[in-house]
């Protein structure tokens, strides 16, 4: 049984003119336990929306998302929040670290809503991402690459089954991007965590064995004429 199973997922937004704009129409998508998948898609292709649907931050219009054997649409909002806290780690392009908290506290905050704070594990994670000596620094005192490493450690704080990474290298240079992706992959592998990373950068995608084209799985992109996302795709 796959860790994540998406079936006939649909999501649309209402445009300022009042028209329904279908952005996600995915008939089938699966992620297995421990699997690492790169999802390629350009700007506006709906990749962030797709991740937010999987995380339960957004609610689908139609279709089914089964995560860890639980159907998201059957859950109430608090239950989805709980499921997210226990099963999903999220790495954002803009890191989204809490600026008023130290590096260690950012990891602990990540644990608060899951299985509870575990300082030893937080320290272990920071050691794994090479920030053992920066635990008491504030995000603003770190380089961009270091901040992203904190975000990676935080995403793994609750020992999630699935890590969603949304353009995690968008703010990094080529060398740092390569290092960060390697780090995410390695840490996820060591923890047996599945990884779904979306990006439009070729250098990032090349580091993965399994690369899915969002354009291939999202029928909303195929039906739009001309497909906006394909025009801007890098």
């Amino acid at each position, binding site marked *: 049984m796959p860790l994540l199973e998406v079936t006939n997922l649909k999501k649309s937004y209402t445009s300022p003119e009042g028209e329904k704009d279908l952005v996600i129409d995915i008939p089938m998508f699966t992620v297995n336990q421990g699997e690492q998948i790169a999802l390629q898609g350009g700007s506006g292709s709906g990749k962030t929306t797709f991740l937010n649907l999987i995380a339960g*931050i957004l609610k689908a219009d139609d279709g089914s998302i089964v995560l860890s054997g639980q159907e998201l649409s059957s859950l109430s909002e608090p239950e989805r929040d709980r499921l997210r806290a226990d099963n999903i780690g*999220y790495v954002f392009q803009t890191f989204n670290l*809490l600026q008023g908290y130290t590096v260690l506290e950012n990891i602990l905050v990540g644990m608060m809503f899951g299985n509870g704070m575990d300082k030893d594990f937080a320290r272990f994670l920071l050691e794994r991402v090479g920030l053992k000596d920066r635990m008491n620094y504030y995000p603003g005192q770190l380089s961009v690459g270091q901040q992203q490493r904190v975000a990676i450690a935080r995403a793994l704080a609750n020992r999630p089954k699935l890590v969603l990474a949304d353009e995690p290298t968008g703010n990094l240079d080529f060398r740092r991007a390569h290092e960060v992706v390697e780090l995410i992959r390695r840490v996820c592998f060591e923890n047996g965590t599945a990884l779904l990373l979306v990006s439009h950068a070729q250098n990032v995608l090349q580091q993965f064995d399994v690369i899915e084209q969002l354009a291939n799985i999202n029928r909303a992109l195929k039906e739009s004429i001309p497909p906006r996302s394909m025009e801007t795709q890098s």
Partner: protein
Amino acid sequence: MSYFGGLGGFILLVRRSLTQHALSTLVTVISVALASGLVMSVFSIKTQTYNAFTGGPVGFDAVLGARGSQLQLVLNTVFHLETSPGNIPWMMYQTIQKDPNVELAVPYAVGDNYRGFRIVGVTDKIFSDFEYQKGRRFQVKPGGQFFNPERREAVIGSFVAQKTGLDVGSKFNPYHGLIFDEKMRHAEEYEVVGVLEPTNSPSDRLIWVPIEWFYRTTGHVLRGKGEIYEPEPGEEIPDEHKEVSAVMLKLKNPQSGFILDQIINKQGKVATLAWPIGRVMAELFDKIGWVNRILSVVAYLVVFIAAGSILASIYNTINERRREFAILRALGARKKHRFLYDCPGGSLHCGTGVGMWICRLCGYPERSGYRRKSPDRCGVGRFRVSSRTPIDTCGNDYSWGSCRTNPRVKGLFNRCGHESRPDLVKLLV
């Protein structure tokens, strides 16, 4: 799952929330504290001033003095403020004290001070017959006694003793005039023979001396007959030369006041009877009613500004924290966590509370034990502060329950942790 992963998590969030927004929290707390303190003070001072001057017994029903303003007479004689409107002959005192309408008459001579505290020449009736409150006469503290009219002695009020350090056995020289001026020192020396127990009245800030010795102070001249008379040492002063600043009167009944008012004020031309004292003072407040109105307007403006600053503060804080909480939501925080995480209301409550406490510390709480200890008649008293003021109600109205149910607040509340899902996404990416 416990809230915030247990107490440690909650403490971490609260600590960081406070330190991260320390300045804005502090400014809000201080501004609300000052606003609430100011409003309470304004309302309280207004009320207390009025009550202090017009309410409650002062021990006398009327004051007889020189022809002129009744208000000045009362302020000078009863509250020991203002200057004396002039003197009246001693004979007038003798006449009024024999009047069947008068129960008690005490002559009052004023014109000297000791370090700003008035020295009042009186007869010993002030201690033997006068009741400053029903059934309560002046009492001296242990070790002291009332003055002997035959000697140059003084009895001082408790507040005078506290402020000047004078005590039984101390000697002091009076200073001429009602305002302290070191150059105006009289050569004569008075000995303190008693310190009065606190009375919570203006008498606490007086120095009582025998009126006879007041006349005999160097530089004091008497014009009881119209011509200047300076008593020689050892010489008995003829009554016709004596004069007094006023005579404090206790009347036999209310009708006595009407009769004396008719005789002295309406038919007479040489003296003024200030009666009843409460009405005279109430007229003062009627005359200065515009001051009260201005004070009220100022107070309401302060309430309005404080309320505005509270709303602005809430709005700013919510906006600042929306993104933070959106991150927490992505990490698994639920909507209900927002209540404990985002505590601007708590801060404001805290601010209001601090304001009240500052106010209570600055003033004297109406319902506390200080009331009994604090002089509560004007002239001495620090004003008590009521905790029942509009800001109090205003502060308490800002509660979680009212936020959730008040439709006006609901819109604001909806911005706080109840962002729609697309909004949440916008905040995160």
